[in-house]
């Protein structure tokens, strides 16, 4: 079984037709229903739903509080490598991005120093990232990094190139809790047009990767489409469908969704389908109503004020004080190439203040070493 089969039943034309056909009363009916169908999702993604953002927001807030309480999980990304062999036209790490700043893999000692800096801020949940670099940053290197990070944090996830099931299993055995892997776009034609080199050109291998991670034992699976590559309504629909598929296929894993919006790209690439704030909010609300139990991650890609407004609309996890360059917290603070520019530059303490001001409790720890039998603690 693969998500590809389900995706096959939902070609772009079918979704477009449903969105086109949706009337205001279909949006109202979708909001009122307790369990929502893919057709309801199309209605909520339609232009008519822009007039219904307030009732959708109220329902999104209700559902999120019901499932997650008034809490926001805190996490931080750690870029351990910015070496990249892929050529993704929108990305600052791409081999032909024209960026000339320094590329490197952090050494074990440097990873330790980065972890110590974040642990001192209170973090207990981190996401380790690399570029697409199977040779330069091999699985053995990532596994070592996971083991090091686990010395500092109970909860460690990765966002790296797609792996085989056995490779994910190896990382889980080192204490990995979660895997984040964005499909970028579910549209095969657009996908091929923006991914020009390396393993990432293999659409099918990437599409199935997150399910392999679930089968290998990853407890948290995070998905997302890079918003701006194609019509957000279509990729948003496919992302939500993927989430629902994973909840069935990997029933022991918690599925979460991110909504990374392209705002800054290298000079050679201009964003073809810029997504406005109101459209991003509509997408998040529609997906929340379709997937009430999915976690929503919100990164520092978005600006501070906008992030604060999004807190009650379905967000369950937030990063703060992030750096997107290897060594950005302690070892190479300004000298390495960053993946993208951070918008919300507030330190964690300020973000925590903003979360509290919205009536939510920041949660630093939500996993324990005792879950993992290999843990020495």
């Amino acid at each position: 079984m693969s998500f590809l089969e389900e995706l096959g039943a939902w070609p772009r034309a079918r979704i477009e037709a449903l969105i086109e056909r949706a009337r205001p009363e279909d949006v109202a009916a979708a909001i009122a229903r307790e369990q929502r169908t893919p057709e309801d999702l199309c209605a909520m993604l339609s232009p008519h739903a822009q007039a219904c953002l307030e009732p959708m927001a109220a329902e999104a807030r209700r559902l999120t509080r019901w499932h997650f309480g008034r809490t926001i999980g805190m996490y931080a990304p750690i870029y351990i490598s910015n070496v990249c062999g892929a050529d993704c036209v929108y990305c600052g790490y791409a081999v032909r991005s024209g960026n000339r700043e320094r590329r490197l893999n952090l050494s074990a000692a440097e990873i330790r120093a980065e972890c110590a800096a974040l642990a001192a801020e209170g973090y207990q949940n981190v996401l380790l990232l690399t570029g697409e670099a199977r040779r330069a940053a091999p699985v053995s290197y990532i596994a070592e990094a996971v083991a090091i990070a686990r010395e500092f944090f109970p909860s460690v996830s990765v966002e790296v190139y797609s792996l085989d099931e056995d490779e994910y299993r190896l990382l889980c055995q080192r204490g990995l809790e979660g895997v984040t892997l964005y499909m970028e776009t579910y549209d095969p034609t657009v996908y091929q047009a923006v991914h020009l080199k390396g393993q990432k050109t293999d659409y099918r291998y990437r599409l199935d990767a997150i399910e392999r991670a679930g089968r290998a034992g990853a407890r948290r699976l995070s998905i997302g489409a890079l918003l701006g590559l194609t019509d957000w309504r279509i990729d948003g629909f496919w992302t939500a469908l993927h989430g629902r598929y994973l909840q069935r296929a990997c029933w022991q894993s918690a599925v979460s969704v991110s909504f990374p919006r392209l705002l800054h790209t290298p000079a050679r690439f201009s964003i073809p389908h810029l997504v406005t704030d109101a459209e991003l909010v509509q997408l998040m609300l529609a997906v929340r109503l379709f997937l009430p139990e999915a976690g929503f991650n919100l990164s520092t890609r978005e600006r501070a004020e906008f992030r604060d407004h999004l807190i009650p609309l379905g967000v369950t996890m937030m990063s703060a004080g992030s750096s997107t360059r290897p060594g950005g917290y302690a070892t190479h603070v300004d000298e390495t190439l960053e993946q993208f520019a951070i918008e919300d530059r507030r330190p964690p303490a300020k973000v925590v203040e903003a979360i509290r001001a919205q009536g939510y409790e920041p949660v630093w720890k939500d996993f324990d070493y005792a879950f993992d039998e290999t843990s020495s603690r």
Partner: protein
Amino acid sequence: MTEDRLVIAGRSIRSRLFVGTGKFPSSAALKACLDACDAEIVTVALRRADLSKPDDDSILSVLNRDRHLLLPNTSGARNADEAVRLAKLARAAGLEPWVKLELTPEPRYLLPDPIETLKATEMLVKEGFTVLPYIQADPILAKKLEEAGAATVMPLGAPIGSNRGLRTYDMLRIIIEQASVPVVVDAGLGAPSHAAASMEMGADAVLVNTALADARDHAAMARAFALATEAGRAAYLAGLGPERSVAEASSPLTGFLRDKD
């Protein structure tokens, strides 16, 4: 009349209302709840609690070891081994050897796994723990857990966090009727009337979390649940009349038989 006290594993418990600590918007909100309802048994997810820094922990820092029995729970454990490791970790950190078993392998509805729960109960009882397992409202499982040495059974009224009340009413009634250990109705109680109904049917205690964490006024809702729990218990002890589906005619239908003479 002798004092009506709940006793679990030989320990006399002050309140029949147990409180869960997840989902609260702040430590202050949790504290207000605990102060208002005076619950003794307070359950804390080990995955969230930082036992190494209890004074900095948003939940642990609110608990008072003289007033509260901190009942650690194994929420998030997917199998018996994980649950047993979590329980041992809590004991090693100096908590009482009590554990609320939550074996919830799927993260969406957090429904309990009966097979792993029974296995973990057997393992933990052998290790000397007082075990309070969270279960489906399954009467046979409840009896098997009792035989395995569970100190209570904690069947659900409805899916956790759903506020749907006693959706498992018929099965809960059988569990209560058959139990020789205290029965704590756990999960799904969204309104004080649900707590009262649980107690009226003979449950020994109830556990509430989401309904308190979600309330506009946390303290007032905690107080309302405490009163409802007490009222339900009092009604149970007083002996409720049987429920009837039709009214009894005030002029008896067979009265004519006596009217003749």
